[in-house]
Protein backbone atom coordinates (compact mmCIF):
# COMPACT_ATOMS: atom_id res chain seq x y z
CA UNK A 1 0.00 0.00 0.00
CA UNK A 2 2.18 2.67 -1.32
CA UNK A 3 0.06 5.61 -0.19
CA UNK A 4 0.64 4.83 3.45
CA UNK A 5 3.79 6.49 4.69
CA UNK A 6 5.86 3.81 6.27
CA UNK A 7 8.21 4.26 9.14
CA UNK A 8 10.91 2.40 7.31
CA UNK A 9 10.88 4.94 4.53
CA UNK A 10 11.99 7.70 6.82
CA UNK A 11 13.74 5.91 9.65
CA UNK A 12 15.09 8.40 12.08
CA UNK A 13 18.87 8.67 11.92
CA UNK A 14 20.72 9.68 15.05
CA UNK A 15 23.04 12.50 14.12
CA UNK A 16 25.96 14.11 15.82
CA UNK A 17 27.57 17.36 14.76
CA UNK A 18 31.09 15.96 14.92
CA UNK A 19 31.77 13.86 11.82
CA UNK A 20 32.76 10.24 12.41
CA UNK A 21 35.05 10.39 9.41
CA UNK A 22 37.10 13.38 10.53
CA UNK A 23 39.91 15.06 8.63
CA UNK A 24 42.55 13.11 10.46
CA UNK A 25 40.99 9.82 9.52
CA UNK A 26 40.52 10.94 5.94
CA UNK A 27 44.16 11.83 5.71
CA UNK A 28 45.17 8.51 7.18
CA UNK A 29 42.96 6.60 4.78
CA UNK A 30 43.77 8.48 1.58
CA UNK A 31 46.71 6.18 0.76
CA UNK A 32 44.37 3.22 1.18
CA UNK A 33 41.89 4.74 -1.28
CA UNK A 34 44.77 5.32 -3.68
CA UNK A 35 45.51 1.60 -3.80
CA UNK A 36 42.53 1.08 -6.04
CA UNK A 37 41.66 2.39 -9.51
CA UNK A 38 38.15 3.24 -8.28
CA UNK A 39 37.36 4.93 -5.00
CA UNK A 40 34.45 2.63 -4.22
CA UNK A 41 36.87 -0.27 -3.90
CA UNK A 42 38.02 1.21 -0.59
CA UNK A 43 34.59 0.51 0.94
CA UNK A 44 35.66 -2.57 2.86
CA UNK A 45 38.89 -1.11 4.28
CA UNK A 46 37.04 2.06 5.29
CA UNK A 47 34.17 0.20 6.89
CA UNK A 48 36.70 -1.93 8.79
CA UNK A 49 38.55 1.19 9.95
CA UNK A 50 35.34 2.91 11.00
CA UNK A 51 34.11 -0.10 12.92
CA UNK A 52 37.46 -0.37 14.67
CA UNK A 53 37.12 3.23 15.78
CA UNK A 54 33.42 3.45 16.68
CA UNK A 55 32.69 -0.17 17.50
CA UNK A 56 29.90 -0.39 14.93
CA UNK A 57 28.70 1.42 11.80
CA UNK A 58 26.22 4.23 12.52
CA UNK A 59 24.21 5.35 9.47
CA UNK A 60 25.81 8.78 9.61
CA UNK A 61 29.26 7.18 9.37
CA UNK A 62 28.15 5.19 6.36
CA UNK A 63 26.93 8.38 4.69
CA UNK A 64 30.24 10.07 5.37
CA UNK A 65 32.17 7.14 3.93
CA UNK A 66 29.95 7.28 0.84
CA UNK A 67 30.62 11.01 0.46
CA UNK A 68 34.33 10.45 0.78
CA UNK A 69 34.26 7.65 -1.81
CA UNK A 70 32.00 9.69 -4.10
CA UNK A 71 29.28 7.04 -4.33
CA UNK A 72 25.64 7.13 -3.16
CA UNK A 73 25.15 6.16 0.49
CA UNK A 74 22.91 3.31 -0.65
CA UNK A 75 25.92 1.67 -2.33
CA UNK A 76 27.96 1.65 0.85
CA UNK A 77 24.93 0.56 2.86
CA UNK A 78 24.39 -2.28 0.42
CA UNK A 79 27.95 -3.42 0.94
CA UNK A 80 27.96 -2.97 4.71
CA UNK A 81 24.78 -4.98 5.10
CA UNK A 82 26.05 -7.88 3.01
CA UNK A 83 28.96 -8.87 5.24
CA UNK A 84 28.58 -10.70 8.49
CA UNK A 85 31.38 -8.88 10.27
CA UNK A 86 29.91 -5.42 9.84
CA UNK A 87 27.62 -4.26 12.61
CA UNK A 88 24.79 -1.91 11.75
CA UNK A 89 23.71 -1.85 15.37
CA UNK A 90 25.85 -1.49 18.49
CA UNK A 91 27.26 -4.74 19.84
CA UNK A 92 28.61 -5.88 23.17
CA UNK A 93 32.07 -4.93 24.35
CA UNK A 94 33.12 -8.52 23.76
CA UNK A 95 31.70 -10.43 20.85
CA UNK A 96 32.02 -14.17 21.27
CA UNK A 97 31.96 -15.99 17.95
CA UNK A 98 31.71 -19.76 18.30
CA UNK A 99 32.37 -21.89 15.24
CA UNK A 100 29.49 -24.21 14.46
CA UNK A 101 30.86 -25.84 11.30
CA UNK A 102 31.36 -29.56 10.97
CA UNK A 103 34.74 -30.19 12.60
CA UNK A 104 33.84 -28.01 15.56
CA UNK A 105 30.40 -29.54 15.92
CA UNK A 106 31.92 -33.02 15.99
CA UNK A 107 34.41 -31.87 18.62
CA UNK A 108 31.77 -30.56 20.96
CA UNK A 109 30.49 -27.16 19.86
CA UNK A 110 26.80 -27.74 20.72
CA UNK A 111 27.37 -28.34 24.42
CA UNK A 112 29.91 -25.53 24.50
CA UNK A 113 27.41 -23.08 23.06
CA UNK A 114 24.76 -24.23 25.53
CA UNK A 115 27.10 -23.73 28.44
CA UNK A 116 28.17 -20.27 27.32
CA UNK A 117 24.59 -19.18 26.61
CA UNK A 118 23.58 -20.43 30.04
CA UNK A 119 26.46 -18.66 31.72
CA UNK A 120 25.71 -15.37 29.98
CA UNK A 121 21.97 -15.94 30.30
CA UNK A 122 21.33 -14.91 26.71
CA UNK A 123 20.51 -16.64 23.44
CA UNK A 124 22.77 -16.79 20.44
CA UNK A 125 22.50 -13.44 18.64
CA UNK A 126 21.79 -11.47 21.81
CA UNK A 127 23.76 -9.04 23.93
CA UNK A 128 23.82 -9.10 27.72
CA UNK A 129 21.78 -6.25 29.27
CA UNK A 130 24.97 -4.61 30.58
CA UNK A 131 26.29 -4.48 27.02
CA UNK A 132 29.34 -6.53 27.90
CA UNK A 133 28.89 -9.69 25.84
CA UNK A 134 27.33 -10.54 22.50
CA UNK A 135 27.08 -14.24 21.64
CA UNK A 136 27.26 -15.29 18.01
CA UNK A 137 27.67 -18.53 16.12
CA UNK A 138 29.72 -18.46 12.94
CA UNK A 139 30.80 -20.83 10.26
CA UNK A 140 34.31 -22.29 9.96
CA UNK A 141 37.03 -19.97 11.24
CA UNK A 142 39.90 -21.86 9.60
CA UNK A 143 41.21 -23.32 12.85
CA UNK A 144 39.55 -26.71 12.40
CA UNK A 145 42.62 -28.56 13.67
CA UNK A 146 42.06 -26.80 16.98
CA UNK A 147 38.35 -27.53 17.24
CA UNK A 148 36.20 -26.48 18.89
CA UNK A 149 37.29 -22.91 18.44
CA UNK A 150 35.98 -19.39 18.53
CA UNK A 151 36.90 -15.74 18.63
CA UNK A 152 36.58 -13.26 21.46
CA UNK A 153 36.59 -10.07 19.43
CA UNK A 154 39.77 -10.60 17.39
CA UNK A 155 41.44 -13.17 19.62
CA UNK A 156 41.32 -16.76 18.48
CA UNK A 157 40.46 -19.36 21.12
CA UNK A 158 41.57 -22.88 20.31
CA UNK A 159 40.66 -26.33 21.65
CA UNK A 160 38.08 -24.78 23.91
CA UNK A 161 36.64 -26.65 26.85
CA UNK A 162 33.51 -25.13 28.39
CA UNK A 163 35.04 -24.80 31.87
CA UNK A 164 38.19 -23.06 30.72
CA UNK A 165 36.28 -20.83 28.36
CA UNK A 166 33.91 -19.65 31.06
CA UNK A 167 36.92 -18.89 33.24
CA UNK A 168 38.30 -16.76 30.41
CA UNK A 169 34.99 -14.90 30.16
CA UNK A 170 34.89 -14.33 33.92
CA UNK A 171 38.31 -12.72 33.77
CA UNK A 172 37.39 -10.16 31.12
CA UNK A 173 36.57 -6.72 32.45
Amino acid at each position, binding site marked *: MAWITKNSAGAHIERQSEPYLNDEMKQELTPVVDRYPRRQ*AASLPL*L*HAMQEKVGWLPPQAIEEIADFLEVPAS*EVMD*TASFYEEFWLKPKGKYVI*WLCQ*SISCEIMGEPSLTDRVAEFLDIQVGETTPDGKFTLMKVE*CLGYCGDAPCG*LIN*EDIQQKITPDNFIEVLKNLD
Partner: protein
Amino acid sequence: MALEQPVLTKRIPTEPWGRHEDRHYVDYNEYVKTGGYQALDKALQMDRTAVIDEIKAAEIRGRGGAGFPAGMKWSFLPPVDGGRRFLAINADESEPATFKDRLLIDYDPHQVVEGIAICMYACQLDTAYFYMRGEYHDQRAILERAFKEAYDNGIFGPNSRLGQINGRNPDLFLHRGAGAYVCGEETGLLNSLEGKRGWPRIKPPFPAVAGAFARPTIVNNVETLACVPHVMENGPDWFKTLGKGRPEGAPPHVPASFGTKLIGVSGPVVRPDVYEEHLGVKMSYCIEELAGGMLPGMEFKAAIPGGISMGVLTKDEYDAPLDFDIGKPYGILGLGTACITVIPEGYSMISCARNLARFYARESCGQCTPCREGTEWLYKILTRIEAGDGTTKDLDLLLEVASSMGIMPGTTICGLSDGANWAVRTIVNKFWDEFEAAVKKNRFVSLSVANNNN
Protein backbone atom coordinates in the same frame (compact mmCIF):
# COMPACT_ATOMS: atom_id res chain seq x y z
CA MET B 1 55.48 -44.16 -1.49
CA ALA B 2 55.65 -41.49 1.16
CA LEU B 3 57.04 -38.09 0.27
CA GLU B 4 60.79 -38.05 0.91
CA GLN B 5 61.33 -34.35 1.36
CA PRO B 6 58.94 -31.56 2.17
CA VAL B 7 58.41 -28.98 -0.56
CA LEU B 8 55.85 -26.37 0.52
CA THR B 9 56.60 -27.16 4.16
CA LYS B 10 60.36 -27.01 3.66
CA ARG B 11 60.58 -24.18 6.18
CA ILE B 12 57.53 -25.14 8.23
CA PRO B 13 58.31 -28.01 10.62
CA THR B 14 55.71 -30.68 9.93
CA GLU B 15 55.48 -34.37 10.79
CA PRO B 16 57.34 -36.56 9.90
CA TRP B 17 60.22 -34.16 9.22
CA GLY B 18 59.72 -31.74 12.05
CA ARG B 19 57.66 -30.90 15.04
CA HIS B 20 54.68 -28.62 15.08
CA GLU B 21 56.04 -26.88 18.20
CA ASP B 22 59.08 -25.68 16.25
CA ARG B 23 57.07 -23.66 13.77
CA HIS B 24 57.91 -19.98 13.59
CA TYR B 25 57.53 -17.04 11.24
CA VAL B 26 60.19 -17.20 8.53
CA ASP B 27 61.23 -13.62 7.88
CA TYR B 28 62.82 -12.24 4.73
CA ASN B 29 66.38 -12.87 5.87
CA GLU B 30 65.77 -16.43 6.91
CA TYR B 31 63.84 -17.03 3.71
CA VAL B 32 66.71 -15.77 1.59
CA LYS B 33 69.28 -17.68 3.64
CA THR B 34 67.41 -20.89 2.91
CA GLY B 35 67.36 -20.32 -0.84
CA GLY B 36 64.39 -17.99 -1.09
CA TYR B 37 63.88 -15.49 -3.93
CA GLN B 38 66.36 -17.37 -6.14
CA ALA B 39 63.48 -18.63 -8.22
CA LEU B 40 62.34 -15.05 -8.75
CA ASP B 41 65.81 -13.97 -9.81
CA LYS B 42 65.95 -16.90 -12.19
CA ALA B 43 62.57 -16.02 -13.66
CA LEU B 44 63.63 -12.40 -14.13
CA GLN B 45 66.50 -13.60 -16.33
CA MET B 46 64.02 -15.36 -18.55
CA ASP B 47 61.58 -14.21 -21.14
CA ARG B 48 58.09 -13.70 -19.70
CA THR B 49 56.55 -16.26 -22.03
CA ALA B 50 59.25 -18.77 -21.14
CA VAL B 51 58.20 -18.48 -17.49
CA ILE B 52 54.58 -19.16 -18.39
CA ASP B 53 55.73 -22.12 -20.50
CA GLU B 54 57.50 -23.61 -17.47
CA ILE B 55 54.36 -23.33 -15.35
CA LYS B 56 52.33 -24.83 -18.17
CA ALA B 57 54.79 -27.67 -18.59
CA ALA B 58 54.65 -28.44 -14.87
CA GLU B 59 50.88 -28.79 -15.14
CA ILE B 60 50.27 -27.18 -11.73
CA ARG B 61 46.57 -27.41 -11.11
CA GLY B 62 44.75 -24.92 -8.94
CA ARG B 63 44.80 -25.76 -5.24
CA GLY B 64 41.74 -23.65 -4.43
CA GLY B 65 39.24 -26.36 -5.18
CA ALA B 66 38.55 -26.41 -8.90
CA GLY B 67 41.88 -27.82 -10.11
CA PHE B 68 42.17 -25.63 -13.19
CA PRO B 69 45.69 -25.69 -14.73
CA ALA B 70 47.45 -22.49 -13.63
CA GLY B 71 49.69 -22.17 -16.68
CA MET B 72 46.72 -22.41 -18.98
CA LYS B 73 44.88 -19.74 -17.00
CA TRP B 74 47.89 -17.46 -17.24
CA SER B 75 48.07 -17.88 -21.00
CA PHE B 76 44.41 -16.90 -21.42
CA LEU B 77 45.28 -13.27 -20.71
CA PRO B 78 44.79 -10.97 -23.69
CA PRO B 79 47.87 -9.18 -25.11
CA VAL B 80 48.99 -6.15 -23.10
CA ASP B 81 47.38 -2.91 -24.18
CA GLY B 82 49.11 -0.46 -21.87
CA GLY B 83 46.22 -0.52 -19.37
CA ARG B 84 46.23 -2.04 -15.93
CA ARG B 85 46.15 -5.77 -15.19
CA PHE B 86 45.63 -7.38 -11.82
CA LEU B 87 46.39 -10.39 -9.70
CA ALA B 88 43.94 -11.40 -6.98
CA ILE B 89 45.30 -13.88 -4.47
CA ASN B 90 42.49 -15.99 -3.09
CA ALA B 91 43.06 -16.35 0.66
CA ASP B 92 39.39 -16.39 1.55
CA GLU B 93 39.74 -19.94 2.87
CA SER B 94 36.21 -20.28 4.22
CA GLU B 95 35.37 -23.78 3.05
CA PRO B 96 34.50 -25.60 6.27
CA ALA B 97 37.25 -27.91 7.55
CA THR B 98 39.86 -26.11 5.45
CA PHE B 99 42.85 -24.51 7.15
CA LYS B 100 45.77 -25.19 4.83
CA ASP B 101 46.42 -21.75 3.34
CA ARG B 102 46.69 -20.34 6.85
CA LEU B 103 49.73 -22.58 7.41
CA LEU B 104 51.56 -20.83 4.57
CA ILE B 105 50.42 -17.38 5.70
CA ASP B 106 51.32 -17.95 9.34
CA TYR B 107 54.80 -19.35 8.90
CA ASP B 108 56.18 -18.90 5.40
CA PRO B 109 54.37 -16.06 3.63
CA HIS B 110 57.44 -15.16 1.56
CA GLN B 111 57.05 -18.39 -0.33
CA VAL B 112 53.65 -17.13 -1.46
CA VAL B 113 54.96 -13.60 -2.06
CA GLU B 114 57.70 -15.00 -4.30
CA GLY B 115 55.07 -16.89 -6.31
CA ILE B 116 53.08 -13.66 -6.57
CA ALA B 117 56.09 -11.74 -7.86
CA ILE B 118 56.88 -14.41 -10.46
CA CYS B 119 53.27 -14.43 -11.62
CA MET B 120 53.15 -10.63 -11.87
CA TYR B 121 56.33 -10.57 -13.93
CA ALA B 122 55.32 -13.42 -16.24
CA CYS B 123 51.76 -12.23 -16.81
CA GLN B 124 52.57 -8.49 -16.70
CA LEU B 125 50.25 -7.71 -13.84
CA ASP B 126 51.00 -4.39 -12.18
CA THR B 127 48.99 -4.70 -8.97
CA ALA B 128 48.26 -7.65 -6.73
CA TYR B 129 45.51 -7.72 -4.12
CA PHE B 130 45.83 -10.33 -1.44
CA TYR B 131 42.19 -11.04 -0.59
CA MET B 132 42.17 -12.59 2.86
CA ARG B 133 39.10 -13.51 4.89
CA GLY B 134 38.27 -10.98 7.59
CA GLU B 135 38.34 -13.49 10.43
CA TYR B 136 42.07 -14.08 9.96
CA HIS B 137 42.97 -11.31 12.42
CA ASP B 138 46.43 -12.48 13.54
CA GLN B 139 47.34 -13.08 9.93
CA ARG B 140 46.79 -9.43 9.09
CA ALA B 141 49.81 -8.35 11.11
CA ILE B 142 51.87 -11.24 9.77
CA LEU B 143 51.16 -10.32 6.16
CA GLU B 144 51.69 -6.62 6.75
CA ARG B 145 55.10 -7.48 8.13
CA ALA B 146 55.96 -9.82 5.26
CA PHE B 147 54.78 -7.33 2.62
CA LYS B 148 56.82 -4.54 4.22
CA GLU B 149 59.90 -6.76 4.18
CA ALA B 150 59.23 -7.45 0.51
CA TYR B 151 58.92 -3.73 -0.29
CA ASP B 152 62.03 -2.90 1.75
CA ASN B 153 63.99 -5.51 -0.16
CA GLY B 154 63.01 -4.38 -3.62
CA ILE B 155 60.45 -6.99 -4.54
CA PHE B 156 57.68 -4.38 -4.94
CA GLY B 157 57.43 -0.61 -5.01
CA PRO B 158 59.60 2.02 -6.67
CA ASN B 159 62.77 -0.08 -6.39
CA SER B 160 61.20 -3.31 -7.52
CA ARG B 161 63.48 -5.75 -9.26
CA LEU B 162 60.54 -6.61 -11.48
CA GLY B 163 60.98 -3.19 -13.06
CA GLN B 164 57.93 -1.29 -14.20
CA ILE B 165 54.90 -3.22 -15.36
CA ASN B 166 52.30 -1.51 -17.54
CA GLY B 167 54.15 1.72 -16.79
CA ARG B 168 53.70 1.37 -13.01
CA ASN B 169 55.67 0.23 -10.03
CA PRO B 170 54.43 -3.22 -9.07
CA ASP B 171 52.40 -3.23 -5.87
CA LEU B 172 51.05 -5.83 -3.47
CA PHE B 173 48.23 -4.85 -1.13
CA LEU B 174 46.27 -6.67 1.52
CA HIS B 175 42.50 -6.54 1.07
CA ARG B 176 40.47 -7.95 3.95
CA GLY B 177 37.10 -9.58 3.47
CA ALA B 178 34.41 -9.28 6.11
CA GLY B 179 32.83 -12.66 6.62
CA ALA B 180 31.19 -14.15 3.54
CA TYR B 181 32.01 -17.62 2.18
CA VAL B 182 30.80 -16.73 -1.28
CA CYS B 183 33.63 -14.20 -1.62
CA GLY B 184 35.94 -17.19 -2.09
CA GLU B 185 34.26 -17.79 -5.43
CA GLU B 186 36.55 -15.93 -7.77
CA THR B 187 34.04 -13.48 -9.22
CA GLY B 188 32.35 -12.90 -5.86
CA LEU B 189 35.85 -12.07 -4.70
CA LEU B 190 36.28 -9.55 -7.49
CA ASN B 191 33.04 -7.77 -6.62
CA SER B 192 34.08 -7.69 -2.99
CA LEU B 193 37.43 -6.27 -4.05
CA GLU B 194 35.59 -3.53 -5.91
CA GLY B 195 33.80 -2.59 -2.70
CA LYS B 196 30.49 -4.17 -3.57
CA ARG B 197 28.53 -7.04 -2.09
CA GLY B 198 30.19 -10.32 -2.98
CA TRP B 199 27.77 -11.56 -5.61
CA PRO B 200 29.35 -13.97 -8.09
CA ARG B 201 29.19 -12.83 -11.70
CA ILE B 202 27.80 -14.63 -14.70
CA LYS B 203 30.62 -16.03 -16.82
CA PRO B 204 31.79 -15.37 -19.46
CA PRO B 205 33.53 -12.99 -19.43
CA PHE B 206 36.12 -14.83 -17.40
CA PRO B 207 38.35 -12.84 -15.05
CA ALA B 208 41.40 -13.27 -17.29
CA VAL B 209 39.59 -11.17 -19.90
CA ALA B 210 37.47 -8.84 -17.76
CA GLY B 211 38.05 -9.25 -14.04
CA ALA B 212 38.72 -6.67 -11.36
CA PHE B 213 37.63 -3.21 -12.51
CA ALA B 214 36.74 -4.82 -15.85
CA ARG B 215 40.42 -5.36 -16.58
CA PRO B 216 42.34 -8.62 -17.20
CA THR B 217 42.82 -10.36 -13.84
CA ILE B 218 44.33 -13.62 -12.67
CA VAL B 219 42.79 -15.23 -9.60
CA ASN B 220 44.88 -17.91 -7.92
CA ASN B 221 44.81 -19.68 -4.61
CA VAL B 222 47.56 -19.15 -2.01
CA GLU B 223 48.85 -22.72 -2.25
CA THR B 224 48.86 -22.65 -6.06
CA LEU B 225 51.12 -19.59 -5.99
CA ALA B 226 53.34 -21.21 -3.35
CA CYS B 227 54.07 -24.02 -5.82
CA VAL B 228 55.34 -21.57 -8.43
CA PRO B 229 58.81 -20.77 -6.99
CA HIS B 230 59.54 -24.48 -6.59
CA VAL B 231 58.77 -25.13 -10.24
CA MET B 232 60.90 -22.17 -11.33
CA GLU B 233 63.78 -23.31 -9.19
CA ASN B 234 63.79 -27.04 -9.91
CA GLY B 235 62.04 -27.23 -13.25
CA PRO B 236 58.80 -28.81 -14.44
CA ASP B 237 60.36 -32.26 -14.83
CA TRP B 238 61.25 -32.35 -11.17
CA PHE B 239 57.75 -31.19 -10.22
CA LYS B 240 56.30 -34.02 -12.26
CA THR B 241 58.25 -36.62 -10.31
CA LEU B 242 55.96 -35.67 -7.42
CA GLY B 243 52.38 -36.77 -7.11
CA LYS B 244 50.48 -39.52 -8.76
CA GLY B 245 50.84 -38.33 -12.33
CA ARG B 246 48.45 -38.95 -15.17
CA PRO B 247 45.77 -41.60 -14.90
CA GLU B 248 47.09 -44.85 -16.27
CA GLY B 249 46.98 -45.07 -20.04
CA ALA B 250 45.62 -41.55 -20.45
CA PRO B 251 46.91 -39.41 -23.32
CA PRO B 252 49.04 -36.35 -22.48
CA HIS B 253 46.24 -33.80 -22.82
CA VAL B 254 44.33 -35.36 -19.91
CA PRO B 255 44.88 -33.23 -16.80
CA ALA B 256 47.00 -35.00 -14.20
CA SER B 257 47.90 -34.91 -10.52
CA PHE B 258 51.45 -33.64 -10.23
CA GLY B 259 53.15 -32.17 -7.18
CA THR B 260 52.54 -32.30 -3.49
CA LYS B 261 49.43 -31.22 -1.63
CA LEU B 262 48.76 -29.69 1.73
CA ILE B 263 46.30 -31.91 3.53
CA GLY B 264 44.40 -30.85 6.60
CA VAL B 265 43.10 -33.45 9.01
CA SER B 266 40.57 -32.48 11.66
CA GLY B 267 38.08 -34.26 13.88
CA PRO B 268 38.78 -36.82 16.61
CA VAL B 269 42.32 -37.81 15.60
CA VAL B 270 45.49 -37.75 17.70
CA ARG B 271 47.30 -34.97 15.81
CA PRO B 272 44.86 -32.81 13.85
CA ASP B 273 47.01 -30.56 11.67
CA VAL B 274 48.08 -29.70 8.12
CA TYR B 275 50.47 -32.16 6.44
CA GLU B 276 52.18 -32.37 3.07
CA GLU B 277 52.16 -35.43 0.88
CA HIS B 278 52.20 -36.54 -2.75
CA LEU B 279 48.97 -35.93 -4.61
CA GLY B 280 47.45 -39.39 -4.68
CA VAL B 281 48.29 -40.30 -1.08
CA LYS B 282 45.77 -42.61 0.49
CA MET B 283 43.32 -41.00 2.87
CA SER B 284 43.93 -43.81 5.36
CA TYR B 285 47.64 -42.96 5.40
CA CYS B 286 46.88 -39.33 6.21
CA ILE B 287 44.59 -40.27 9.06
CA GLU B 288 46.69 -43.05 10.53
CA GLU B 289 50.31 -42.23 9.85
CA LEU B 290 50.26 -38.45 9.64
CA ALA B 291 47.51 -37.56 12.08
CA GLY B 292 48.33 -40.46 14.40
CA GLY B 293 45.04 -42.33 14.03
CA MET B 294 41.77 -41.98 15.87
CA LEU B 295 41.65 -40.74 19.45
CA PRO B 296 41.49 -43.58 21.97
CA GLY B 297 38.01 -45.03 22.14
CA MET B 298 36.98 -43.53 18.80
CA GLU B 299 36.27 -45.49 15.68
CA PHE B 300 36.28 -44.28 12.10
CA LYS B 301 32.83 -44.02 10.53
CA ALA B 302 33.21 -41.75 7.53
CA ALA B 303 35.21 -38.80 6.26
CA ILE B 304 34.55 -35.67 4.29
CA PRO B 305 37.80 -35.40 2.35
CA GLY B 306 37.75 -32.18 0.33
CA GLY B 307 36.26 -29.47 2.41
CA ILE B 308 32.57 -30.14 2.84
CA SER B 309 31.51 -29.37 -0.74
CA MET B 310 32.85 -32.52 -2.36
CA GLY B 311 30.87 -35.22 -0.58
CA VAL B 312 31.51 -38.04 1.85
CA LEU B 313 33.61 -41.21 1.86
CA THR B 314 32.59 -44.31 3.82
CA LYS B 315 34.60 -46.88 5.73
CA ASP B 316 34.78 -48.98 2.56
CA GLU B 317 36.41 -46.05 0.80
CA TYR B 318 38.96 -45.46 3.55
CA ASP B 319 41.92 -46.02 1.20
CA ALA B 320 40.77 -43.55 -1.45
CA PRO B 321 43.74 -41.79 -3.08
CA LEU B 322 43.59 -38.01 -2.70
CA ASP B 323 44.22 -36.76 -6.21
CA PHE B 324 42.34 -34.83 -8.87
CA ASP B 325 40.77 -38.04 -10.21
CA ILE B 326 39.11 -39.05 -6.94
CA GLY B 327 35.67 -37.88 -8.08
CA LYS B 328 34.42 -40.52 -10.49
CA PRO B 329 35.50 -43.77 -8.83
CA TYR B 330 34.36 -42.63 -5.41
CA GLY B 331 31.15 -40.89 -6.38
CA ILE B 332 32.14 -37.48 -5.08
CA LEU B 333 32.60 -34.13 -6.77
CA GLY B 334 36.40 -33.98 -6.70
CA LEU B 335 39.50 -33.33 -4.64
CA GLY B 336 38.38 -29.91 -3.41
CA THR B 337 40.71 -28.46 -0.80
CA ALA B 338 41.95 -31.90 0.35
CA CYS B 339 41.15 -31.12 3.95
CA ILE B 340 39.68 -34.13 5.69
CA THR B 341 37.08 -34.09 8.45
CA VAL B 342 37.00 -37.42 10.22
CA ILE B 343 33.58 -38.49 11.47
CA PRO B 344 33.57 -40.96 14.37
CA GLU B 345 31.27 -43.90 14.93
CA GLY B 346 28.33 -42.74 17.01
CA TYR B 347 28.01 -39.38 15.28
CA SER B 348 24.79 -39.23 13.29
CA MET B 349 25.07 -38.72 9.55
CA ILE B 350 21.74 -36.92 9.72
CA SER B 351 23.24 -34.35 12.08
CA CYS B 352 26.20 -34.14 9.75
CA ALA B 353 24.04 -33.48 6.69
CA ARG B 354 21.98 -30.97 8.67
CA ASN B 355 25.13 -29.14 9.72
CA LEU B 356 26.37 -28.91 6.12
CA ALA B 357 23.00 -27.84 4.74
CA ARG B 358 22.78 -25.08 7.31
CA PHE B 359 26.13 -23.78 6.14
CA TYR B 360 24.97 -23.40 2.55
CA ALA B 361 21.60 -21.95 3.55
CA ARG B 362 23.42 -19.35 5.60
CA GLU B 363 26.09 -18.53 3.04
CA SER B 364 24.02 -18.56 -0.16
CA CYS B 365 24.21 -15.06 -1.60
CA GLY B 366 20.59 -15.32 -2.74
CA GLN B 367 20.95 -14.36 -6.39
CA CYS B 368 19.77 -17.68 -7.82
CA THR B 369 16.41 -19.01 -6.70
CA PRO B 370 17.33 -22.73 -6.78
CA CYS B 371 20.23 -21.99 -4.44
CA ARG B 372 18.55 -19.48 -2.14
CA GLU B 373 15.40 -21.57 -1.71
CA GLY B 374 16.95 -25.00 -2.20
CA THR B 375 19.60 -24.69 0.49
CA GLU B 376 17.02 -23.48 2.98
CA TRP B 377 14.73 -26.38 2.08
CA LEU B 378 17.51 -28.90 2.51
CA TYR B 379 18.23 -27.47 5.92
CA LYS B 380 14.58 -27.51 6.96
CA ILE B 381 13.97 -31.06 5.77
CA LEU B 382 17.08 -32.33 7.50
CA THR B 383 16.21 -30.51 10.70
CA ARG B 384 12.82 -32.18 10.55
CA ILE B 385 14.29 -35.62 9.99
CA GLU B 386 16.75 -35.11 12.81
CA ALA B 387 13.93 -34.07 15.12
CA GLY B 388 12.17 -37.34 14.35
CA ASP B 389 9.40 -35.89 12.22
CA GLY B 390 10.73 -37.02 8.85
CA THR B 391 8.85 -39.18 6.40
CA THR B 392 10.08 -41.57 3.73
CA LYS B 393 9.01 -39.03 1.14
CA ASP B 394 11.39 -36.53 2.69
CA LEU B 395 14.33 -38.60 1.55
CA ASP B 396 13.19 -38.45 -2.06
CA LEU B 397 12.48 -34.78 -1.70
CA LEU B 398 15.97 -34.19 -0.30
CA LEU B 399 17.58 -35.92 -3.25
CA GLU B 400 15.34 -34.15 -5.73
CA VAL B 401 15.98 -30.68 -4.33
CA ALA B 402 19.71 -31.32 -3.94
CA SER B 403 20.26 -32.64 -7.43
CA SER B 404 18.39 -29.78 -9.08
CA MET B 405 20.76 -27.06 -7.89
CA GLY B 406 24.15 -26.06 -9.20
CA ILE B 407 26.22 -25.06 -12.21
CA MET B 408 26.25 -28.65 -13.36
CA PRO B 409 22.49 -29.04 -13.58
CA GLY B 410 22.73 -25.56 -15.08
CA THR B 411 20.46 -23.72 -12.69
CA THR B 412 22.79 -21.37 -10.81
CA ILE B 413 25.56 -18.84 -11.29
CA CYS B 414 28.23 -20.25 -9.02
CA GLY B 415 29.44 -23.50 -7.53
CA LEU B 416 28.23 -22.87 -3.99
CA SER B 417 25.06 -24.76 -4.75
CA ASP B 418 26.90 -27.62 -6.43
CA GLY B 419 28.63 -27.92 -3.06
CA ALA B 420 25.29 -28.15 -1.27
CA ASN B 421 24.10 -30.62 -3.88
CA TRP B 422 27.05 -32.99 -3.48
CA ALA B 423 27.47 -32.61 0.25
CA VAL B 424 23.89 -33.59 1.01
CA ARG B 425 23.26 -36.04 -1.82
CA THR B 426 26.33 -38.20 -1.20
CA ILE B 427 25.57 -38.45 2.51
CA VAL B 428 21.96 -39.47 1.93
CA ASN B 429 22.90 -41.97 -0.77
CA LYS B 430 25.87 -43.53 0.98
CA PHE B 431 24.14 -43.70 4.36
CA TRP B 432 20.69 -44.52 3.09
CA ASP B 433 20.05 -47.15 5.77
CA GLU B 434 20.69 -44.67 8.54
CA PHE B 435 18.33 -42.14 7.00
CA GLU B 436 15.70 -44.76 6.29
CA ALA B 437 15.82 -46.00 9.86
CA ALA B 438 15.39 -42.45 11.09
CA VAL B 439 12.32 -41.72 9.03
CA LYS B 440 10.74 -45.11 9.65
CA LYS B 441 11.16 -45.11 13.38
CA ASN B 442 9.44 -41.90 14.25
CA ARG B 443 7.05 -41.49 11.42
CA PHE B 444 4.52 -38.73 12.14
CA VAL B 445 5.48 -38.57 15.79
CA SER B 446 5.99 -35.05 16.95
CA LEU B 447 9.24 -33.83 18.39
CA SER B 448 8.04 -33.62 21.97
CA VAL B 449 6.65 -37.15 21.94
CA ALA B 450 9.80 -38.47 20.31
CA ASN B 451 11.94 -36.88 22.96
CA ASN B 452 9.88 -38.29 25.81
CA ASN B 453 10.14 -41.76 24.36
CA ASN B 454 13.90 -41.72 24.23
